[in-house]
């Protein structure tokens, strides 16, 4: 495996997002998030109410039980951090494809 360069290593973004769909982060949105992350290499963590979990794990996201209008802190670390965040922001904005 290629060693990440200094620049790549230092790429770390922390961003706060709001959950906009009515049902909150239930099973379907969690699946959407995990599917998005599958094509990226960065490490992604969600922090909610002092609990930080790996966003690649469906069970971890579900455990947080985040409701509508709650803010979630997202930490992305890695070379493709920017594109990961862009995709996540658009998923949250479009309510994960849900109508309400």
């Amino acid at each position, binding site marked *: 495996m290629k060693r990440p360069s200094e620049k790549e290593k230092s790429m770390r973004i922390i961003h706060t997002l709001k959950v906009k769909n009515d049902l909150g982060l239930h099973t379907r949105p969690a699946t959407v998030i995990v599917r998005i992350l599958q094509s990226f290499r960065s490490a992604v963590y969600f922090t909610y109410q002092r*609990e930080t979990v*790996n966003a690649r794990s469906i*069970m*971890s996201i579900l*455990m947080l*039980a985040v409701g509508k209008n709650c803010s979630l802190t997202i930490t992305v670390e890695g070379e493709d951090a920017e594109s990961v965040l862009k995709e996540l922001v658009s998923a949250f904005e479009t309510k994960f494809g849900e109508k309400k």
Partner: protein
Amino acid sequence: MYLVQNLYDQYGKYLDLELIAGESGMHRSIKKPEVHRPGLSLAGYRKSLPTARILVFGKVEISYIRELDPTSRLDRLKTVLTSATPAVIIARYYRPPKELVMICQENGIPLFRASMSATTLLSKITFILLEEFSPSVTMHGTLVEVFGVGVLIQGESSVGKSEAALGLLERGHRLISDDVVKVKKREGSYLVGSGPELTRHLMEIRGIGIINVAHLYGAVCVRPDKGLDIVIKLEEWDDRHFYDRVGLEEKFCDILGISIPFHILPVKPGRDVVLLIETIALNHRLKDMGYHSAKEFNVKLLETIAKRQEKRVAAKR
């Protein structure tokens, strides 16, 4: 921060607490996981008065206050109840002296009544607070009990943690939690892992989905918590990495300041991960019993070499 409100919400029913006065102080924070019976301080001894603790008034305290004259009653109670006192609890449903109710109401110190005796209250609340105040961390991994050993299986997503756990369950071992493990340090010396309430005993298996292990395999296959004894990290096999071949050197990892035996287990087709994890767990038990396979063998080997050397020297003479 742990508030009186949190204690009341979570354990109010269990401790059978009844709020009598000082509702405005429910947001007071509990800063120390300790409970105090103010016997001596009530008697007028003011040196090293423990302030930031929950106070429990038992039979002795109540009957002593009743015997005092009204002015000194108020005076003594005021010295014991400071601005840092989180809450006051009266044992055995004793009727609180009206001065106590008054002070609590005025200063916003929650005053409770409980049916238990003071000693029971003391031990139960101390236990609860120690549990709440113990340092904890949420870890990514799967916690299983294998031959009585608490094994945390870690590794990148999709390396096969859940699949390994499923294989272990099938062989009669137990699942504590899949994917998310809450690890707590107890009494500053050992670690205990448990699953979050919501996703307890649920597993996510790629290609199948979410399954409830307790329902599928029965109650014998799960348990709510377990001491964490070893950490096994599953890794994709890397030909350039030199994996441990003899096991003489022991590796450790640090969790909440406690070092835990740590194994890296490379995964590749043909390697039975379940069997390997079982073997690591058994070997750990053996080490705990005082037998270290690799070290014992090395000692035996060294002895044999030394004996042969002696023979060779003797033959030369």
